[in-house]
């Protein structure tokens, strides 16, 4: 696939040269290669601080790349099979926002599932776009939202033929994939652009036998969290675009919200990780898939837990499954996922990615070994042995169809008042409520608050979920639209 040498790492090479040249800095950052902040240097290391530098001619400029960053972005585009790639240092949040801001103006319609990451709805507030939600469907046993079916999209398009774009989560946090190829063809046939939140799908571009990647399906834009499963530093990410997008315009949109002081630590981590993925990705993800499969088999032997995988695939809302994900349904042992998540950390020193009402998710990566997997499996045995309870009476569903009555932007900027959460039923929500992780809003601005939603929020709070998004940090009160 590659016509460029993926062994090259232009940003790394430039930084090494910068260091060898022993440049005397009279520019920012003021720690001056670490010398001005010995305590920070002692903690992070001299090497790290010495390349925490500012944009300069030999190191290029992230806002207007013409040399080494440009070359590194071209290498990334080549490795991912994209027309263009943009390095993002403000998190995948910035990549998702740029996708929406680049395609939807104020009042434009965008079709998306409701179980999107908060960053997508934040972008709706920024752009003023009008969301058209497609019900993702729920697996009622597991309580997890699923993917987007072409049928549901067809119906949404029929009702909203003027929509500008379709946004798809692929894969979802839990590893569920949609039929991206058909969705893309359908959207394109109706002159809509396809945006893919591929935050959890970096490995799709490099592993074997994994679900199809956004670019391979002809999608127009994809936000790829290199830092999640690609090995780069936290907050570094990629925005990939296809042939239909004008790269200059996309760059301008990115620059609306992205820092002008792009971190070279983050940039070089993208550069190095891209090279490693292109060169060794196959072997890396072969190992990850086999470790995850081993863990699933062992966890399913325990009894009570259900580590799910491809057997969920039904050709529709679960078109494919990402087998590198280790999602485990815990409700049958009488524990909410969030309770297992807390026990694992507090009692066993094991930090997993998240726990929700019915499931936990462990991220397996190239950094894992059979020994770390054994610890997780052994701890799950112990958790069951020591903490299992009667599962009756536990909350058993997760997706509540939203009633959108105002655009997120209008609701967010409307006159609002504070009401106690228990008395908020019937009001129009003026802010976000979500559990983090996974960071999927339970309520977004412009949505009608119902008793069912309030029950869900109170239950999640009682079980120890980390709720956020509200102005009232104690989540006792909600800000609602004052009508």
């Amino acid at each position, binding site marked *: 696939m590659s016509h460029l040498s993926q062994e090259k790492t232009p940003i790394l090479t430039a930084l090494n040269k910068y260091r060898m040249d022993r440049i005397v800095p009279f520019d920012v950052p003021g720690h001056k290669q670490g010398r001005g902040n010995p305590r920070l240097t002692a903690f992070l290391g001299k090497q790290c601080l010495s390349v925490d530098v500012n944009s300069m001619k030999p190191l290029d400029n992230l806002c207007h790349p013409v040399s080494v960053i440009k070359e590194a972005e071209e290498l990334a585009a080549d490795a991912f099979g994209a027309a263009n790639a943009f390095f993002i240092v403000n998190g995948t949040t910035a990549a998702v926002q740029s996708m929406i801001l680049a395609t939807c103006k104020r009042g434009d319609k965008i079709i998306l599932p409701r179980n999107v990451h908060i960053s997508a709805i934040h972008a709706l507030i920024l752009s003023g776009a009008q969301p058209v939600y497609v019900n993702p469907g729920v697996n009622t046993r597991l309580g997890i939202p699923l993917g987007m079916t072409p049928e549901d999209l067809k119906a949404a398009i029929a009702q909203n033929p003027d929509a500008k774009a379709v946004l798809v989560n692929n894969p979802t946090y839990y590893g569920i994939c949609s039929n991206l190829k058909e969705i893309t063809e359908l959207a394109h046939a109706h002159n809509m652009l396809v945006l893919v939140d591929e935050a959890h799908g970096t490995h799709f571009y490099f592993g074997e036998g994994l679900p199809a990647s956004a670019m391979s399906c002809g999608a127009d834009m994809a936000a790829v969290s290199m830092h999640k499963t690609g090995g780069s530093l936290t907050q570094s990410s990629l925005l990939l675009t296809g042939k239909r997008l004008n790269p200059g315009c996309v760059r301008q949109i990115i620059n609306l919200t992205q820092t002008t002081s792009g971190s070279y630590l983050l940039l070089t981590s993208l550069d190095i990780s891209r090279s490693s993925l292109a060169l060794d990705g196959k072997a890396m993800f072969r190992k990850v898939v086999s470790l995850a499969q081993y863990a699933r088999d062992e966890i399913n032997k325990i009894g009570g837990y259900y580590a799910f995988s491809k057997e969920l695939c039904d050709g529709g809302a679960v078109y494919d499954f990402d087998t590198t994900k280790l999602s485990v349904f815990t409700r049958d042992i009488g524990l909410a996922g969030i309770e297992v998540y807390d026990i694992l950390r507090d009692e*066993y020193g094991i930090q997993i990615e998240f726990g929700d009402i019915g499931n936990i998710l462990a991220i397996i990566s190239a950094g894992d070994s059979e*020994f770390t997997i054994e610890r997780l*499996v052994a701890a799950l*045995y112990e958790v069951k042995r020591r903490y299992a309870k009667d599962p009756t009476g536990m909350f058993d569903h997760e997706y509540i169809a939203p009633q959108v009555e105002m655009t997120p932007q209008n609701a967010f900027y409307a006159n609002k008042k504070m009401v106690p959460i228990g008395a908020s039923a019937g009001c129009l929500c003026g802010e976000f409520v979500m559990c983090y992780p996974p960071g999927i809003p339970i309520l977004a601005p412009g949505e009608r608050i119902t008793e069912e939603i309030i029950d869900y929020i109170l239950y999640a709070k009682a079980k120890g979920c980390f709720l956020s998004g509200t102005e009232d940090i104690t989540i006792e009160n909600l800000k609602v639209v004052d009508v």
Partner: protein
Amino acid sequence: MDLWFTEQHTKDVCFSIRVEKQIHSEQSKYQRIDVFESKEFGRFLTIDGKMMLTEKDEFIYHEMIVHVPMAVNPGVKNVLVIGGGDGGTIRELTRYGTIEKIDLVEVDKRVLEVSRAYFPEVSEKLSDKRISFYFEDGLRFIREKENEYDLIIVDSTDPFGPGEGLFTKEFYGSCCNALKENGILVNQQECPYYADYSKFMKRAHQCMQEFFPVCRIYQAQIPSYPSGNWVFGFASKGLNPVSDLRDSEWNKLGLKTRYYNTDVHVGSFAIPNYIRDILADTTEQQEF
């Protein structure tokens, strides 16, 4: 030629042995294994640069990890040894005719093969008919066992690298579950003197207390190990290592030992105050 093996006991303390020659070196799937010949300690085995055993002083470790629990419950029939691929613990155990079954779980088969090749006196009893071998992670092996063993001996490497899982709460919980009513768990718990090691002793001890009503430590002097002062953990579901010691019964067996005797047994459970204080301290140590 001046050739020395050096092990860094802490970042500021080194321990060196003059080496006559290096006999073996390999990187197994899990770890680096080396064998050296020296004048002072004889042949010695290191794993990832850490001293595992020397011909001269290995008897201390192996006698203390086996005879202490055996003298408290000489009726032990089913034993599980986790780690201990060198065979020293097995050698001591096989001296008891009353033991019927020994399961040896060693993650790295190469340790066993290297010991067989270069330490015949340590590994001589690895061919005993009562032994079943399992080459896998101890944490994996034990998690499904229930009410099966009278004695579990954890003869592990240090709690960094492949041995890490054997110092965790999930492991001790599984051990408790795998032991019978009178069961005993003995493990090596590092050195009490240097903070880098004693934090593991403390953590192990405090974790084990959550599962076992009886939880004690005992000491031995092992010259080739960090600080020379080594600690073992003794945990049981009821048997007390001192008041339940069956000394006359054990002495009647007539086993010839070089370090262990029933007086040493009792004395080894006398713990200096500074170690008691570490064990009683429930605050977390600062890592840096």
